[in-house]
């Protein structure tokens, strides 16, 4: 009798599931193994609910991805229901997204890091749920540092010295493709992150402060960019001027770099079975500048539901599933994607599979934010001016002091005197 009742209930569930089955399309990043993790997570939700998901893969460069989103959203297109958006985009795209604060309970929201929730709240509306967080960190080759008797660097100058020493020694030993340090310096959003880390770690501020005042033209920022420029062609290949995350990881994972600045995603890929540098990777916080502190740029991705979605209820449900502790834990353990839920950093499985998450907890919670909230709709211009200026300095087309003075003037003009 009980069996029969269960069977009927199951059949009933199945049929209602089938009758209301909808297809939700979600845009996922495709940097590293991101697409796979997104697909697996979304498929698991689909299986559980009887709906279908369609994965839309997007360009690797954040700048290009944003452009694609803007075109889709400006046209009011319902083709994509759930968007994976960067931590600097809520202000730009808020108009196109549903307010999720009513769909999620206070407990669900409260479990996430507060700064990210604040970041995603525009004019009192929660336009996106945090999915994973990111901060720039320093990868180093444990085997090479040990072999040459070096410690992970605490300051940028130490990094230069160690990198130079090991690079020279390795090249002398016949490994002539070895470089000391790789990072992201193509003229794109990633250079804004790298540049902000240098400037902030030297105590040079955050380009524009919380009140909208343009602070970038200062001596510490000049010193920071001067140091960065000194790496190009010495410890870093000149090609970094056209590297994004994946090009830097390409050099690093082939075993051709001593240090790399990258996001946490590079950890699990470097530790994969077929990786030549498996078990030779260490991670520490980025070095500090002279008289400055160690810092990392706040990155990370959120999930937002399009206002133009035809199935908002199911789309919200998919977001709930993907941002839940269970799914975030799976992503942390298998892919080293940093959870946005504080309690997961104390989870044994998480810390065991990605030890840096425990060790760098402070870095993740105190990461330096790009000035996207205060500059609002103009953030992209600010970022473009900053990465172009930094690129000019790194490629030795301009002196740091002149370049930053010119940048401050441009930002002043752009913001009409800091009023944004």
């Amino acid at each position: 009798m009980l069996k029969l009742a269960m069977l009927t209930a199951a059949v009933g569930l199945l049929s209602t599931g089938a009758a209301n089955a909808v297809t939700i399309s979600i845009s996922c990043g495709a940097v590293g193994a991101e697409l796979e993790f997104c697909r697996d997570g979304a498929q698991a939700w689909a299986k559980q609910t009887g709906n279908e998901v369609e994965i839309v893969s997007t360009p690797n460069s954040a700048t290009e991805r944003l452009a694609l989103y803007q075109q889709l959203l400006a046209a009011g297109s319902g083709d994509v229901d759930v968007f994976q958006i960067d931590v600097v985009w809520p202000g730009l795209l808020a108009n196109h997204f549903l307010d999720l604060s009513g769909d999620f309970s206070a407990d669900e929201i409260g479990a996430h890091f507060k700064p990210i929730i604040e970041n995603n709240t525009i004019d009192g509306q929660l336009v996106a749920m945090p999915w994973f967080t990111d901060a720039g960190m320093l990868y180093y080759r444990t085997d090479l540092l040990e072999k040459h008797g070096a410690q992970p660097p605490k300051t940028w100058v130490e990094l230069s010295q160690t990198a130079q020493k090991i690079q020279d020694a390795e090249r002398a030993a016949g490994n002539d493709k070895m470089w000391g340090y790789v990072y992201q310096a193509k003229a794109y959003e990633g250079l804004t992150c790298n540049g902000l880390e240098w400037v902030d770690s030297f105590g040079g501020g955050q380009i524009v402060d919380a009140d909208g005042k343009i602070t970038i033209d200062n001596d510490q920022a000049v010193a920071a960019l001067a140091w960065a420029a000194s790496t190009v062609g010495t410890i870093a290949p000149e090609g970094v001027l056209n590297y994004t995350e994946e090009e830097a990881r390409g050099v690093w994972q082939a075993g051709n770099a001593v240090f790399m600045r990258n996001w946490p995603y590079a950890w699990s890929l470097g530790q994969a079975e077929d990786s030549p540098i498996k078990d030779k990777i260490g991670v520490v916080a980025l070095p500090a500048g002279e008289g400055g502190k160690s810092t990392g740029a706040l990155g990370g991705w959120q999930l937002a539901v399009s206002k133009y979605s035809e199935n908002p209820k199911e789309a919200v449900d998919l977001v709930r599933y993907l941002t839940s502790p269970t799914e975030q834990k799976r992503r942390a353990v298998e892919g080293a994607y940093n959870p946005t839920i504080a309690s997961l950093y104390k989870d044994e499985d998480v810390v065991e599979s990605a030890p840096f998450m425990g060790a760098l907890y402070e870095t993740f919670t105190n990461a330096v934010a790009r000035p996207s909230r205060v500059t609002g709709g103009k953030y992209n211009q600010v970022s473009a001016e900053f990465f172009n200026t930094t690129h000019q300095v790194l490629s030795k087309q301009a002196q740091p002091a002149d370049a930053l003075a010119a940048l401050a003037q441009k930002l002043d003009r752009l913001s009409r005197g800091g009023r944004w």
Partner: protein
Amino acid sequence: MTTASRLTRSRTRSAWMFLAPMLVVLLLVAAWPLARTIWFSFTDANLSDMAAAEFIGLANFEYLLTDPDWWQSVRNTLFFTVVSVSIETILGLGIALALNMHMPGRGILRTAVLIPWAIPTIVSAQMWAWMMNDVFGVLNELLILVGFIDQGIAWTANPSTALWAVIMVDVWKTTPFMALLILAGLQMLPSECYEAAKVDGVHPVEVFWKVTLPLLMPALLVAVIFRLLDALRIFDAIYVLTGNNQATMSMSVYARQQLVDFQDVGFGSAASTLLFLTIAIFTTVYLTLARVGSSEGDRA
């Protein structure tokens, strides 16, 4: 007399009838977007809220003409256009002359030459980006092997080589197009002139300068104008190889950045309009010069 003019009239009428669908399509897909872009260039339209656009007169153009980045992109575009089209014309002419000779396997060669042109620019540019990579690129590998350099060159990263890298990719891709257009011209040339030159025992080099080149001029001019128009609006190769980098930014890349990245439809439209005007002026000047040149040639 009256019948003839009636015939002419009815012919004119049917000509218009046949042309009408074409004209309607052209109005819809070319004239309308162009007019809209020009209209937007006088407004402060923003992609996030297009309805709020207001007329602001020439303010966009004023700002644009005082923007050093814009002038940098104009310089880049002109430099790219002049250099790439010159190289493509010379190489294309050489290849066309070679393909025009009677030799075995000519048909296969002519088809094979077209391969770079058939590959979409995005694909070929990305392919070159990998080949030109400073650490694992095959180009540096080869140069090191031959001994020209001992350390990989960052072709697309160094501002002094980046624009040349773009030119190289464009030359690789579009030389076949030039070669085929010129080859078509070569095959139209009357053989009598060559036979006469042969009888007179004129040196082949002189034949080229005195016979081939003057006769080929009209075809060459058409080929060059096609390439010029194309080169002035270069976007894809630059965007794939170096992105929004100011050192290589063309006018199209600049306009796209304003329109799409910065959502500034008004300002971006102003840049697009100026790009359109630049191309129009270039074409007019070129065609006028070409016409004057060819009519002088006729008199001589």
